[in-house]
């Protein structure tokens, strides 16, 4: 039996790694997910039949809990709208962290004089990391859901941050070196780590959410790995570490895409509204474009590149974009999409939204390809995107986003910007692109604007 269980865990680990490996291409990704799921089922089977030194098995409790968990999880996953995907993933992620926390608590309640330091320390880690990930994810969920718009930074945030970490770690060592009497240090540590999750996500702005979600994802993986360490369970250990490592690298990739260090994102506060050194004078005006002009401009061009931002998702306009794409395709206009790595509210979010609208993935260009393509583009249509096309990032050292790689929309012949209003947008940073000679503005809700264009196109074609 022991060896059967070991083999099951081995296959599980291999399936996780291979499943992730298959996510490299959209063609194999779906199978990869199934393989990873099979790995998970085998792992669960292993933990169900693994011989244990003590205990009464209590299978009824297990079956009931699994049933309840599935009955909650499945409908949530099936009903969620694709625009709300980041929130849901954040929530699932938080629950995983909570699960590790509960396991850590129980294990620490069970310790006795014989429990070695290492087991206690690992339980502490599972509890601590899990709890931070739990409350952090729930807060991220609330922020993404728009239920929490506030974001303030307490004075001395960074010092307090450090102090909290030191106290939590100190309590952890205290618990791990103590022989019994977990008592108050356990509960104080739990409370502090739950608070820390809130504390650390609270000041982070909505535009930085892709980074935070990815980071929290990685934390949950680590907490699962720590929980695996408690039981010497290799499937948990390696599965968790895989998630932790992959989440970390993804986080760093996001930061790179914004040209900011992880610290800068976490410590926040740097992104203050309107802090560009060269504020745009009032003499500059935005030039508007009329419906017929916009439609005709696109209709008679060869290449149109769409740059979608979160504004597109907000007004649920993905499907309308696709409709416009089809109409233009009918008169041999090539329509492609340029996706900035941090467009949307989680990494790659925009790709999913467009895929949902049946846009084939070959039409989605990443940053480098898009910038190469922009030089031969006749019309670039920016829908609800702002910072990712802000040229200040290239040439204004005083701008808060200076150095961030952007989509160089101005390389195209014409730029049309669909924008809700004249304001500076989510991050509050002025965007000189909007005042540029090449740029024409089209004000209004993205969906309504696109519908107007489609109506024009239908009349013309």
């Amino acid at each position: 039996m022991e060896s059967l269980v070991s083999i099951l865990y081995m296959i599980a680990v291999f399936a996780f790694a291979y499943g992730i490996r298959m996510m490299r291409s959209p063609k194999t990704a779906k199978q990869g997910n199934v393989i990873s799921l099979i790995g998970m089922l085998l792992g669960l089977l292993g933990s169900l039949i693994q011989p244990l030194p003590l205990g009464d098995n209590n299978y009824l409790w297990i079956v009931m809990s699994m049933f309840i968990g599935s009955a909650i999880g499945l409908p949530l996953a099936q009903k969620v709208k694709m625009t709300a995907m980041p929130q849901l993933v954040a929530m699932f992620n938080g629950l995983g962290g909570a699960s590790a926390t509960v396991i850590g608590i129980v294990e620490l309640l069970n310790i006795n004089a014989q429990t070695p330091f290492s087991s206690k320390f690992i339980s502490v880690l599972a509890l601590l990391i899990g709890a931070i990930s739990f409350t952090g994810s729930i807060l991220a969920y609330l922020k993404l859901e728009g239920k929490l718009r506030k974001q303030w930074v307490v004075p001395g945030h960074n010092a307090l941050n450090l102090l909290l970490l030191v106290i939590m770690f100190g309590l952890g060592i205290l618990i791990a070196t103590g022989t019994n009497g977990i008592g108050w240090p356990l509960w104080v540590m739990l409370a502090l780590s739950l608070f820390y999750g809130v504390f650390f996500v609270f000041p982070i702005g909505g535009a930085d959410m892709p980074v935070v979600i990815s980071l929290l994802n990685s934390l949950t993986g680590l907490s699962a790995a720590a929980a695996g360490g408690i039981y010497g369970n290799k499937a948990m250990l390696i599965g968790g570490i895989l998630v932790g490592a992959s989440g970390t690298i993804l986080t760093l990739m996001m930061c790179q895409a914004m040209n900011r260090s992880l610290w800068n994102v976490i410590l926040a506060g740097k992104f203050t509204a309107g802090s560009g050194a060269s504020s745009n004078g009032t003499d500059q005006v935005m030039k508007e474009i009329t419906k017929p002009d916009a439609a005709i401009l696109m209709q008679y061009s060869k290449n149109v590149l769409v740059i979608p931002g979160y504004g597109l998702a907000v007004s649920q306009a993905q499907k309308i974009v696709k409709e416009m794409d089809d109409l233009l395709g009918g008169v041999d206009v090539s329509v492609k999409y340029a996706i900035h790595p941090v467009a949307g509210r989680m990494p790659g979010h925009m790709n999913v939204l467009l895929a949902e609208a049946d846009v084939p993935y070959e039409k989605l260009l990443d940053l480098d390809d898009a910038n190469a393509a922009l030089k031969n583009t006749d019309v670039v249509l920016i829908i609800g995107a702002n910072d990712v096309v802000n040229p200040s990032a290239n040439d204004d050292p005083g701008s808060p986003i200076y150095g961030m790689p952007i989509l160089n929309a101005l390389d195209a012949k014409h730029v049309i910007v669909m924008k809700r209003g004249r304001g500076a947008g989510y991050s509050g940073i002025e965007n000189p692109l909007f005042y540029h000679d090449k740029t024409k503005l089209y004000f209004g809700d993205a969906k309504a604007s696109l519908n107007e264009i489609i109506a024009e196109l239908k009349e013309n074609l």
Partner: protein
Amino acid sequence: MEQIGQFVNSNLLEIYILLMAIFLGFELISRVPTVLHTPLMSGTNAISGVVTLGGIILIRSAAADNYVQLVLGSLAIILGVINIVGGYAVTDRMLKMFKKEKK
């Protein structure tokens, strides 16, 4: 300090595995195209549901009348299973939408 040394010594194999797994995780992800980052994240998020295995072992090692452990263990399983089921289902839904251009 001594305890930390002892910790390292008694878990040498685990630490080796850990290092290799970290390396593997980095390698696997760094080649995934941006197009797939969201499904990738929700897919790996589902994998962190392995924590459920711990909940199962926890409950199985409890005495039938240790209700604190049984209830907390059930909670761990419920939370973990939501993560697993929801995570895989949502990833599958997303990946189904990625299609090739119809010719």
